[in-house]
């Protein structure tokens, strides 16, 4: 880590808790000394390290050794042959962050970086604006690190996600409004209190954590960048950072230069980025979200502009899916691969299905789908849509009657 640098004008700032350029409000990003990193980092020494996201430590923005979330990452990359057949593509992989440690979403990656860095900068209180997964991760990782946590969420979030933050003893503040309003309030609070807001003043560090998902994909594919990567978009940050991870591996000679396409997935009920991409625009129009994919419900996406740029530059596509298609995507992934994803995963699978059907991801190609969160957290979204149990008395006769009626039903089909 060398400095914080404005993505727009290139002005540099010291490595403090600061996310905005004073001159043009552009986002600050961590700048690295790649020449130096190149000398110390090889495939062999990465492979010799523990299987966590920290095996790529030189490319993550902490000054010393990480102290929070040291076990995070290196989730399975699953070869999804059954889903591939259902979607009509030659080869398909699922990057399965539904089993990330400790809170079952990709947010553990960004939080471990943000909190490790917050400690280095001397903060004792951490905070976030969240659509659900982030607050779970901040609450859990702060508890384990002995930090005080304030998490701000839309008041109507899924029960599973709310309880998943309360249990760690975090101060959970429900805001009566949608995420963009939570975010605006947090931007104001962050300017006023000396806290480490992971996705406000700590955002340059925090967002870099997402790169680890891309590094792992490349390593797990045998140091190969996938031809197609499908990524769900809320703020658009994950998509831009996975692109950056591929670029960095090429720059460092850890993966070979290859043509790859980055595709973006949104829910139709909150699709400012995919709508702009499909219309060929390089800017988006903010929307008021209305979708079951609450973790993606950001109507004013901070990285929307850059996500559009990445898709344009790599030749990727964007698409969005309805609530019914999201549930269908969740079921498809569960029934074919035994992976239960939250609504955002349903969005990614649903969009992949559409892009393959439209030929935007050719049937004879290979794709990786980034599945970012666990379905146990959004049970409300699928309850009543996945069938129900059939209750019988503990009687063999009743069970056989049930089997017989199934057989009879099957015969009449």
């Amino acid at each position, binding site marked *: 880590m060398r400095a914080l640098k404005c993505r*727009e004008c290139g002005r540099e700032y010291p490595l403090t808790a600061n*996310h*905005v*350029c*004073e*001159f*043009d*409000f*552009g*986002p600050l990003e961590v700048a690295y000394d790649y020449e130096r990193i190149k000398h110390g980092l090889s495939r062999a020494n990465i492979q010799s390290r523990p299987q966590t996201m920290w095996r790529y430590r030189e490319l993550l923005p902490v000054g010393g050794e990480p102290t929070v979330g040291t076990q995070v990452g290196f989730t399975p990359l699953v070869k999804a042959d059954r889903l591939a057949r259902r979607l009509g593509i030659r080869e398909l992989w699922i990057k399965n962050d539904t089993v990330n440690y400790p809170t079952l979403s990709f947010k553990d990656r960004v939080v471990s970086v943000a909190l490790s860095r917050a400690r280095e900068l001397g903060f004792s209180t951490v905070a976030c*604006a969240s659509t659900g997964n982030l607050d779970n991760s901040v609450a859990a990782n702060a508890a384990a690190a002995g930090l005080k946590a304030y998490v701000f969420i839309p008041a109507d979030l899924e029960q599973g996600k709310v309880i998943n933050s309360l249990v760690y003893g975090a101060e959970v503040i429900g805001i009566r409004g949608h*995420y*963009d*309003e*939570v*975010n*605006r309030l*947090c*931007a*104001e609070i*962050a*300017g*006023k209190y000396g806290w480490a807001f992971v*996705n*406000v003043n700590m*955002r340059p560090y925090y967002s870099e954590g997402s790169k680890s998902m891309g590094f792992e994909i490349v390593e797990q594919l045998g140091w190969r960048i996938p031809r197609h990567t499908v990524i769900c978009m*809320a*703020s*658009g*940050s994950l998509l831009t950072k996975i692109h950056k991870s591929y670029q960095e591996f090429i720059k460092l000679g850890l993966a070979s230069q290859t043509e790859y396409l980055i595709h973006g997935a949104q829910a139709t009920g909150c699709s400012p980025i995919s709508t702009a991409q499909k219309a060929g625009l390089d*800017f988006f*129009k*903010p929307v*008021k979200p209305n979708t079951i994919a609450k973790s993606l419900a*950001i109507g*004013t*996406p*901070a*990285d929307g*502009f850059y996500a559009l740029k990445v898709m344009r530059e790599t030749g990727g596509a964007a698409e969005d899916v309805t609530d019914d298609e999201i549930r269908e995507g969740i079921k498809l992934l569960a029934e074919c691969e035994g992976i239960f994803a939250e609504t955002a995963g349903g969005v990614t699978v649903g969009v992949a299905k559409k892009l393959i059907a439209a030929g935007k991801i050719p049937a004879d190609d290979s794709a990786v789908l980034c599945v970012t969160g666990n379905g146990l957290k959004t049970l409300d979204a699928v309850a009543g849509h996945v069938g129900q149990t059939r209750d019988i008395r503990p009687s063999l006769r009743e069970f056989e009657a049930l089997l017989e009626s199934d057989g009879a039903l099957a015969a009449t089909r």
Partner: protein
Amino acid sequence: MPTKVRIPTPLRKLTNNEEVVEVTSTTVGGAISELQGLYPGIKERLLDDTGAVRRFVNVYVNEEDIRFLQNQQTPLKDGDEMSIIPAIAGG
């Protein structure tokens, strides 16, 4: 009663560290020009070369994004609150 304008941290060097300042203009665009008179240099930080609000600046009137209202033509009346907030946050 004038309109209160909340100034974000990156601009407070221009407002002598004032967090809240007051204007009497009747539109958002007018308020930005008025701010320029009070704190020279602030306008170019908020607006781009074409006079549009910069890509990474969000402006709210009474907690509503002006892009859902009438952008710089959004009216201001006594007691309204205008907030200027960096767009890069969250997610």
